């Protein structure tokens, strides 16, 4: 187990390093000028532009820039944002991480919590009207672009009904004296629409995976044997069949884990949710190299960690994997 874990971790670290170098090089080869956004709609002189390039070190050759980046990164310094000068990239990442974790965590919880239950329900009621309607409804939501659904929900619940906030993570005017309960309630109200949007467009995959996996398992001999032993159907379903039908969903969960950090670019933009996805999208548009690199490194670390965690979960859940 230890040797396997060490090998898997070493692979992940190596992949992370390769990804980081590739990101650094590709980003600088991509066309685009990071100073364009600073220029705004008032044109900048050549001297001003040169002074700003010197300030951000982007007047240097790529090799020198890479050396500066590596030296800084080893000391935990990812540089200073161009767009949000003079804020350090690490400060930006740390300030945006909680919003991403909250939205991503809520979406994962809702998508997998509700998706698994509905998938099991569909498998048990295979071919019946409820199964057919749930498939149609989930696929319809799946086919909707998330930003479009977000805009529709924002318009209906936020503007037409004036029930829920249409943007931001919290009320910027909330009094500093507000209790934690009031603060939590405020964040919850702001969370509803983006979380609902992301859950609605994602849930179909979990339902489909769970339904298919459970239908496969329900056909197997050990389920028949359990029924033959006279076990109650609920026990057969949840204790025997469902546990064995969980592995594909665990794999899917591992793949989806990065959403915790990356969030959803489109939904975060539509709801102005201050997460890392939003930050990354703005940074890409502005060619804010240090921020792009910082967010990309964080997401790639999360992808690799998700893979390792999914493998560990397989290892823990499936004795066949342990034996292999």
């Amino acid at each position: 187990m230890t040797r396997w874990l060490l090998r898997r971790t070493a692979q992940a670290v190596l992949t992370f390093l390769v990804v980081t170098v590739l990101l650094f090089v590709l980003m600088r080869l991509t066309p685009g000028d990071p100073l364009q956004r600073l220029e705004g709609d008032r044109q900048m002189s050549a001297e001003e532009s040169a002074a700003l390039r010197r300030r951000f070190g982007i007047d240097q050759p790529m090799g020198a820039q890479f050396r500066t980046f590596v030296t800084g990164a080893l000391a935990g310094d990812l540089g200073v944002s161009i767009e949000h000068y003079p804020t350090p990239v690490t400060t930006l990442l740390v300030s945006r991480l909680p919003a991403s974790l909250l939205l991503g965590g809520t979406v994962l919880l809702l998508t997998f919590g509700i998706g698994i239950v509905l998938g099991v329900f569909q498998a048990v009621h295979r071919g019946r009207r409820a199964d057919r309607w749930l498939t149609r409804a989930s696929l319809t939501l799946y086919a909707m672009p998330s930003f479009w659904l977000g805009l529709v929900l924002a318009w209906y619940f936020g503007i037409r009904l004036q029930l829920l906030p249409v943007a931001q993570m919290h009320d910027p005017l909330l009094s500093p004296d507000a209790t934690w309960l009031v603060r939590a309630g405020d964040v919850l109200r702001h969370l509803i629409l983006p979380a609902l949007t992301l859950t609605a467009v994602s849930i179909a995959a979990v339902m489909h995976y769970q339904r298919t996996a459970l239908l496969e398992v329900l056909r197997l001999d050990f389920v028949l044997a359990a029924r033959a032993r006279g076990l109650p159907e609920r026990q057969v379903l949840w204790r025997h069949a469902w546990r064995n039908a969980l592995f594909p969903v665990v794999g899917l969960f591992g793949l989806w884990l990065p959403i915790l950090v990356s969030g959803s670019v489109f939904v975060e933009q539509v709801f102005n949710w201050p997460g890392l996805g939003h930050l990354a999208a703005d940074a890409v548009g502005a060619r804010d190299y240090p921020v792009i690199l910082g967010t990309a490194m964080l997401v790639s670390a999360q992808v690799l960690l998700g893979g390792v965690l999914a493998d560990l979960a397989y290892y823990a859940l499936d004795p066949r994997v342990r034996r292999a």
Partner: protein
Amino acid sequence: MRHVSRSTLLALCLLATPAGVPLATAQANTRQETVVIVGAQEAATPIPTLLGNTAANMAVTDLMFLPLARIGRNNITSGDKDFIPQLARSWTRRDSLTLVFELDSRARWQDGVPVTARDAALALNLARDPAVDPQRALLLQLVAEATALDDQHLLVRFKEAYDEQLYDAVYHVSPLPAHLVDTVPRGALGKSAFASAPIGNGPYRWVRRVPGQQLELTANDQFFLGRPGPRKVLILTVSDAEARMNLLLSGSADVLQSSAMIATVSRLAADKRIRIYPMPSFSVGYVSFNQRDPADLGRPHPILSDLAVRTAITMALDRRGMVQATFGPWASVPQGPIPQMSWVRDPGYKPAPPDPAGARALLRSRGWVDTDGDGVLDKDGKPLALGLNYPSPSAQAGVLALQIQEQLRQVGIRIEVNRLEGSVWGERRNAGAFDLDFGQATMDPSPAGMVQTWSCAGRGGSNKAYYCDPKVDSLLALALRAPRKEALALYRETVRTIAADAPAVFLFTTTTPMAVSDRIKNVELVPVAPWSAVWRWSPGPVP
């Protein structure tokens, strides 16, 4: 289970009610007294000498810092009379090269220190330093020195006698607190404590900035011109256009500087809780013709260096129709690089109607004919085909680019529309890698600002299309030094000359629709400094 749920609910209600009711009242009061402005770009710092010259930065400057004087309602930048005193109570002229300002003795920095002439001299001298602010140094090149005579009197001496001396002394930079800035090394200003939490002398003081999200200012009750009405100003940075509009429509925000596109304005105007205030702007939109070959900037452009081709393109376009369809009443066609607010604008100017037949004839006279019948004119075996670059974030550029493409197709010119990501568009523009380029610029209030983009000296800098006409340069130089009446005639001749040279198709000059919540009364918007009068607004109850 049911019992537990009810108990939990009850407990939550009990917890929430005693704390919640007074808090909700306080919350409502705070919201009522706050003006929430939604912007697309982050206001990084209100200190104009430290970062790029973005409109967002300048907006915060308007709220926190007072200039010595502001340009008056007619936007006349020439002479000494049409300015409104701000920090300076008055100004006198010692001779044709020297102005003396008398500062208002009531003015204080927000840390209580009096504003003195030393502060004003420091800011002007900082801005004149090319190492600190190259752009402003260029604009202030005719300022010889700024000196504090005593606490209340500032002397500004100029290198030459010209009519815009006062404008130069007061418009480009506001005084900075010498007791905080003077000790900071010039190269370290951007990262100084003052830059992160600046102290101004205006109606609002800095509270905090959450990078990429919001900037919070609070009323400065010691402001010597009066007590600010809105107690707080919150500027939200929202990059998505739909999210910005949703915030206003849902009542979470109060002010949005809207796009002038008719579709956007109509959507906002349909909401009875929102009022649209027209604010004439200094913005001009145009399509530049690159006069250099994008493949080799040392050579003239193979097609666009010919004045007849550029003129024919302008003639073929129905500028008035395009502007009407895209902006409705929120824009007009400019004569040249002169915004509708400029004091030298010719009010009698009417754009020539489109003349596709004339354009075809002109092109034919230069040898452009459709020899192979494919609908595209050609000459020496080469088709009359050009690329038009525009930045993808600009919805109006996208709409206009397609109209231009279609109208030019009808006279036999093939336009390849290139929708580019903002930073890529900017990079290509700066490198001169384009045929036609869609640009929109906020011009300086002074018509002398034309020198940046439309003079030979501006080539390689703001003059991205390498346009150069020595006659324009000499007209601009004469206008700068001429008294107002002569200057007006000279500037108008400059604009006519530029229009005849056709370095660009001048498409539109907009009126900015400011969408403001109906609960805000006494709304006053100053075109040269839109947010400078926010302190006089009266916010009412939140509906």
